């Protein structure tokens, strides 16, 4: 065994640190940090504005009343601020949308990932993703002018503004989100897993349902969460086709305003600037933010719980 003895050494110029290289590295690192910090800053700023504008509102209306009252009438003579009247609209339209999008999106994903030939997949996927690019205002008119009239032929008592039509259209809108993310998750399942299932004598359908989908659970659930967040925050479709009247109802054939639809109507100038009614949109916005935040945390938790290890 040799005993380590420190030797006197010199720094050869060939091996010494280059000032120029180090300087450039530092600049680049700083630039990257600034870009990353910008997104954090914007998020913080949004939360700050929402909270600071909502505080005066909550000094006037108690949080308890805000969360438990079921009537929302900021521009009536008797003013009441029960956010439940808006949340009910948001939840109902979101639920209808999911009822459409979850089965449709999941089945599409399974088809594209496990059954479609390369050519079919490469044709369908871009078309599907094109659906994401359709402006939501177009979807709104689609709901109002086409889907609701069609639903009225089946159910004649349906009002022009209702939650069913826009809910369905919103569902169609989010199908590509679910299909695309779920398909990616299923295709990421290694081929060895498929071979294992086929080698056991499983059919394609059995392989897809019993092996591939469970293996891709985390990705599939993530796509659902993404879709829910998207539906909760959707504004134009519901503002156009679901009506503007805040009503505490979970009945899909009723007309009702969602949180987002209310914010739009106020922001467009129905209420005077600085008044309590105006501030109510920040409280409503904060509610929306909390809802999506909870969903995201839930999604994160689910993803961690079901993280696949293959």
């Amino acid at each position, binding site marked *: 065994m040799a005993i380590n003895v420190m030797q006197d050494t010199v720094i050869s110029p060939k091996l010494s640190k280059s000032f120029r290289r180090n300087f450039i590295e530092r600049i680049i690192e700083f630039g990257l940090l600034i870009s990353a910090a910008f997104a954090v800053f914007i998020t913080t700023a949004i939360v700050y504005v929402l909270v600071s504008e909502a505080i005066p509102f909550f000094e006037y209306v108690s949080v308890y009343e805000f969360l438990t009252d079921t009537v929302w009438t900021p521009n009536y003579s008797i003013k009441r601020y029960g956010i439940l009247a808006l949340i009910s609209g948001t939840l109902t339209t979101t639920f209808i949308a999911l009822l459409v999008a979850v089965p449709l999106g999941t089945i599409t994903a399974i088809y594209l990932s496990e059954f479609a030939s390369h050519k079919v997949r490469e044709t369908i996927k871009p078309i599907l993703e094109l659906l994401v690019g359709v402006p939501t205002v177009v979807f709104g008119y689609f709901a109002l002018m086409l889907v609701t009239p069609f639903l009225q032929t089946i159910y004649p008592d349906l009002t022009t503004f209702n939650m069913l039509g826009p809910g369905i259209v919103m569902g169609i809108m989010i199908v590509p989100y679910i299909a695309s993310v779920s398909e990616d998750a299923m295709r990421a399942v290694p081929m060895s897993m498929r*071979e*294992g*299932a*086929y*080698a056991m004598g*499983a*059919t394609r359908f059995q392989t897809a349902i019993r*092996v591939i989908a469970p293996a891709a659970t985390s990705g599939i659930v993530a796509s659902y969460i993404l879709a829910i967040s998207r539906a909760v925050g959707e504004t134009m479709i519901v503002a156009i086709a679901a009506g503007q009247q805040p009503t505490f109802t979970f009945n899909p054939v009723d007309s009702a305003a969602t949180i987002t639809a209310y914010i739009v109507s106020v922001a467009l100038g129905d209420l005077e600037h600085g008044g309590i009614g105006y501030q109510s949109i920040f409280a409503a916005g904060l509610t929306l933010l909390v809802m999506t935040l909870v969903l995201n945390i839930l999604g994160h938790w689910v993803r961690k719980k079901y993280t696949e*290890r293959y």
Partner: protein
Amino acid sequence: MVATQRKTTQKKRFNDVVKAESRNLDFYYADGTQALKNVNLDVYENKITALIGPSGCGKSTFLRSFNRMHDLYTGNRYDGQIVLHPDNTNILDKKVDPIEVRMRISMVFQKPNPFPKSIYENVAYGLRVRGEANTHVLDEKVEEALKGASLWEEVKDRLHDLAFNLSGGQQQRLCIARALATEPEIMLFDEPTSALDPIATVNIEELMSELKKKLSILIVTHNMQQAARISDYCAYMYLGELVEHDLTDKIFTNPSKKETEDYITGKFG
């Protein structure tokens, strides 16, 4: 079922019963490369047949033809026959259902590939696919298969744990149990120990020697000592062709072809 009596066959070579035989087997991948050239090889009942040869020689391609794994990828093409006895059926025929073939010829892969399910459900999978839903039958067969794969003692108290929590060697034995549960006639092993440590490897090898009492085994291995240790018959393949096929003792002591000797003695490969 066809009403007429099926003609069954029983052939013998080397005093052993032929379980399956490939006849003039050619195989082409979708890009046109020919991976197998006129391969004629027997798999014998209750014997272990080992396929050896350098990487890319076609031994895995050959193995995977036996349960029609190549069907999963479009454009692959077989020529020739693989005849399964006693049915006397060419399992590569387009009229043969690959799912029926896979139910009788199961496979264990190079890397353990358990499903994202519990230990129990992994083993029960093949039975469930076949429509078995009776819990008592499933419990019994799962236990039997896990015992057959000498894994039962290690997992009997945690059958409902996720299969991924097992070690690599245990996972591979689980995959063997999974394949065993459906009582196959032939079991294909594609380098089953290449991802395992030496102790896990010995376990799997002992297991295979035990398994051959019940079924026929075809194994691809890169490890020549392994082929010498466990196999009864050995086939040397090179560039998609079968160079030599004989009793393992003969191949390793007195091969009739120069190429085989060069490969076995390490002069080549």
